[in-house]
Each structure stands twice: as structure tokens, then as C-alpha cells.
């Protein structure tokens, strides 16, 4: 067995056993485990784009938000069953990725970043203003939990295992896509788009597929958010939440798929613990973010590579 396989096996075995070995399971399975998996899946959609296209997108919460609002509104006010509203919501979130992607993929780097941030903030202001549809600032509360095959997901353990299954499936799907010829072509676009074009590739469809796939992941995380938090309000897609997500991706390591989950676990645990010591945990997260950006821009997953590079430089000089 290769080293990476061993790591995967250990991580999954630990995740499966987690509800039974953690102290204070009532708190940690929900506020630590399920929350980290939900945030991790949202962050995964961002890492996937950054890793394969070199684009940092803050639009992921837009897709999550569109899906989340559709599921919440249809189930609370129109008594639509989750069996209908969840697929429809995910479809709508993914399709909105086609529109946003068509515009945003014409830009690069910091422009792309700004544009996707504006998209998410735009949804925030719409959700605040459109009282008739979104109930404005109060949002939509007491969203019921899904019951699948007689199992009630209002309990933390079933919800945790459902989230774990989703996370493992999506992570594997990302890994699989990266190993196909499509994934390799994407890396070509990331590294040198002009050369790919002159080699005869049509790069826009490649980029669109990657973007829409990432909005699909973000849409799924929107459903997870609705089930986990059981409410949705403009703050679910606000500036603070967007930055929170960015913190997760950057702290974990923005060029690694696993970084999304490493960052999500770290931030979930960090915030759960620090809440007991200071009410200013958002500021503490911000400071952690700035420190990581200044000292280890590759994040936790990249620290070994960074140290190795530094050692090589020292050895050569």
C-alpha cells in the first residue's frame, strides 16, 4: 500500500469512529464533525477551482445560497417534499454557475476574485431587500429535517454520517476528474492557456465544465447548510461568511484538495474552543488568517513543501 492510501484509510477510519471516541459527543459530533464536513465541502468547491484552474472564487456561497434558499422556501412555505426540492435546488444552483461562469471566466486573477465576491455580496443584498421572497433579515427559520428510509436526520449522528458520505463521495469525484484526460487538460489551461489554445484546445468549454462542476459541489453544500443550521438568512451568504470560507481554504492549503477539510476541521475546532475564552473569535480568526498568509501562504498542507524548499535554498547558497 502506498503512503497516500494509508493516510486515506487512517483518516476515513478515524472519521467513522469519531462519534464513538470523542469526549462530549453531543457537542463535538455536531459543532466539530458535522460542521467541519459541511464547511469542508463548500471549501472543496473552492479548492477544486483554485487547484485546477488557478482561480480563487468567492462565488461559491452564491451557489450554496441559491440552492439553500430554494430548498428552504419551497419546504417551509409551499410544503414541497425534499425529494423534489433538493434536486431542483441543486439543479438551479448548478445552472446559475453556467451564467456566472460565462461572465467570470473571461477575467483572471484578482479581477476574477473581485467579480465573484461582488456576485456573492449581490445575493446578500438581494436577500436583504426582497422581503416578499426571502423574508429579509430574519430569513427562513425552523426548516424541518429530512427523514430518509425512516431515519430521522434531526439527530446528530445520522446527519454526521450522511455528511461524511457526501464529503467522501465528492472528494473522490474531484480526484477522479483530475486523473482523467479532462483533468490533465485543465492543468494545462491553468499553467499556460495560450499554449493550450495554439495546440488546438478550446479552453473556454474546459474552464466552463470545471466551474460548473465546482458550483455543483457548492450547491450540494448549500443543502447541507440548510439541514445543519435549519435556517437561512442573508448572513448565510454575507461578507463575514465568505471570508470565513476563504480562511478555511487558505489555512488548510489552497492548492490541495485535502486542504479544504484540514482547514475546515481546524477552523471548526478553533472556533468551538476559542468561543469559551473570548467573544471576539471572529477577530481571532482574522488574525490567524493574516499570520498564515504572511508566513505560510501554502497553508498547513504546504508547510512541509515550504520547509523543504527553504532548506534547499539554504543548502545551495
Amino acid at each position, binding site marked *: 500500500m502506498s503512503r497516500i492510501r494509508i493516510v486515506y484509510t487512517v483518516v476515513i477510519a478515524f472519521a467513522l469512529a469519531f462519534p464513538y471516541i470523542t469526549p462530549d459527543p453531543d457537542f463535538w459530533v455536531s459543532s466539530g464533525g458535522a460542521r467541519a464536513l459541511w464547511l469542508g465541502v463548500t471549501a472543496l468547491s473552492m479548492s477544486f477551482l483554485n487547484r485546477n484552474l488557478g482561480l*480563487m472564487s468567492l462565488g461559491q456561497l452564491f451557489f450554496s445560497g441559491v440552492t439553500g434558499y430554494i430548498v428552504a422556501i419551497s419546504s417551509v412555505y409551499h410544503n414541497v417534499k425534499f425529494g423534489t426540492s433538493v434536486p431542483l435546488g441543486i439543479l438551479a444552483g448548478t445552472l446559475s454557475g453556467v*451564467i456566472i461562469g*460565462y*461572465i467570470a471566466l*473571461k*477575467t*483572471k*486573477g*484578482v*479581477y476574477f*476574485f*473581485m*467579480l465573484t*465576491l*461582488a*456576485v456573492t*455580496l*449581490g*445575493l*446578500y*443584498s*438581494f436577500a*436583504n*431587500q*426582497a*422581503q*416578499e*421572497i426571502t423574508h429579509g433579515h430574519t430569513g427562513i427559520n425552523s426548516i424541518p429535517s429530512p427523514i430518509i428510509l425512516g431515519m430521522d436526520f434531526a439527530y446528530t449522528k445520522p446527519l454526521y454520517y450522511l455528511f461524511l458520505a457526501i464529503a467522501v463521495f465528492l472528494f473522490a469525484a474531484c480526484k477522479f476528474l483530475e486523473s482523467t484526460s479532462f483533468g490533465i487538460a485543465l492543468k494545462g489551461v491553468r499553467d499556460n492557456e495560450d499554449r493550450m489554445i495554439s495546440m488546438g484546445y478550446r479552453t473556454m468549454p474546459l474552464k466552463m465544465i470545471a466551474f460548473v462542476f465546482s458550483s455543483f459541489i457548492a450547491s450540494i453544500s448549500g443543502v447541507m447548510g440548510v439541514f445543519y443550521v435549519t435556517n437561512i438568512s442573508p448572513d448565510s451568504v*454575507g*461578507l*463575514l461568511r465568505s*471570508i470565513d470560507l*476563504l*480562511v478555511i481554504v*487558505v489555512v488548510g492549503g489552497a492548492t490541495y484538495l485535502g486542504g479544504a477539510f484540514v482547514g475546515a476541521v481546524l477552523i471548526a475546532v478553533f472556533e468551538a474552543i476559542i468561543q469559551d475564552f473570548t467573544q*471576539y473569535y*471572529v*477577530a481571532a*480568526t*482574522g*488574525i490567524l*488568517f*493574516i499570520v498564515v*498568509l*504572511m508566513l505560510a*501562504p501554502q497553508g498547513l498542507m504546504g508547510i512541509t513543501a515550504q520547509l523543504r524548499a527553504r532548506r534547499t535554498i539554504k543548502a545551495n547558497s
Partner: protein
Amino acid sequence: MEYPGGGVSMTQFIFTFLNGITLAGLYFLVASGLTLIFGLMRVINLAHGAFYLLAGYVSWTIADKTDNWFYGALAGSLTLGVFGTLVYVLLLRKFQYEELRVALITLGVSLVLAQAMLAIFGGEYYQTNIPKNLSKSVPIPGFELSYPFFRIFVLILAILVAVGLWIFISKTRYGAIIRAGVDDTSMVSALGINVQAVFIWIFFLGSVLVGFAGAVGATTNSFGMGTDGDYLLFSLQVVIIGGLGSIGGVAIGSFLVGVIGQFATGYFPTYAGIITFTMLILVLAFRPQGILGRKQ
């Protein structure tokens, strides 16, 4: 936003237009600092909304204590100038040429600032009093209506700042040094000019502008928790539509976002966000770099 007067549709139309164009003046003041710093230094400051809100709090506090609006505006501008320069020197300067990393760090700054301001000033909303000698109404020629003078004053200020910036950057020796320093840092240093100092002054000026905008905006609109995100969104919309890095682009972007945004809010309140958003998408579909932006 409410309109003074109201009633007949023509009245509503005129007030919506005046509100829109004076709001455009405020947007111009807010976004000009952002675009100035980016256009000259390629540094994008996403703590811009938080800077705006901080200036609002500082100017409100000083204006309230001294009972003088102008002291408040001065304090807001200078505090932000110093604060912005510190952020640049301590956190950003080292990575100035890594655009995305700088953008991320400034987002972290905005997170810390937002919480610090919430801790100090709480969740209430404030609004600075209009200076007494400016708190009058002016008649609108041709109609039996009047409009608050202070809002017109904001528009005049914006036009003055726009002309001033344009003259400063394209007509003066300092402007020439700044433009040269951005295009070829090492050549300008070789001529004996301290480029690092030039960059610090640009950042100072850009932050003073947002500080001043915060003081003005705190007088025309109420502000508080969440205002930072709103104004970051307005600034981004303005510079994305107009084209990042161009003063003329900010003027056009402010006009469109201000006027169309006001008409949307006045006539279709539920869908105002979608209308502004559609405008943004439409502009970008045809000109990804914005109306006056240079090709990336």
C-alpha cells in the same frame, strides 16, 4: 432611501434622479481611493468597506464631541490616512507584487476591523448631523419643489475631487513621478527618487479619500454594523463596471450604479438588487475589463 416630498409621479421621478446622482457623488468619493491605489500600485484593498465604516465612526464621534462637522471630517480623513498607511507598511508592502495575496490579507484586515468596531460601537446605527450652515433646502427651478442642499454639496465635492485627482495625476510633476514609478520602479529609483516613499504617499492619499468619503457618507446615510459590506459591494460594482484603475471609469460606474440603483429601489424595491446585478453582468458580457478599463 426615502425621498423628501413624494406623491405625484413626476415629483417621484425628479427626486429619484436627484437622489441617484447625489448618491453617485458619494460612490465616486468612496471608490476613487480604491481605484487610485489599484491603478497606480496594482494593490487591491478589500478592507475598503471597513475603512469607510471606521471613518464614519471616527468622524461621527469627533463631530459629536466638538459640535463641528468639519473637524469630524478632518479627523476621519487623517485617521484613515494614517491607519491605511500603517496597514500598507506593516502588512502589504512585502508582498506588493502578489496581487491575490495582498487582496486576501486586506480581507483579513476587514474581518478584524469589523469585529473591533462592533466591540467598541455596538450594533446601533448612527448618523452625523449636517453642518448648520449647509442644512438648508434649495428650490428646484421650474418646479415648486426643494431639495436638501447638503446632498448637492456632496455632488459638488465629488466633482471637485475628480477634477483635482485628474489634474494632480496627469498634469503635475508629482503625478508624473507617480506614474513613472509604477511603470518602471528601478529606473525611477536610479534617478534619485525614493519610490518607496512615493508608494506610501499614494496609499496615504487613497486612504484619506476613503476617510473623507466615510465622513460624508455618515452624514447623508445612517451607518452601523454591516455598512462595511454594503459599501465594499458598491465600490466593487462601481470599479468593475467602470473599469478598475481609471478615474473616468469610476465616474461612469458611480453614475450608473447610483442612478440606476435609485430608480430600481424607488420603482421595484423587491428586485432592486437583481436589476443592478443584471447591469453588471451585461456590461461584463461585452466588456470584461469594464467600460473604461485597460485590457488585462
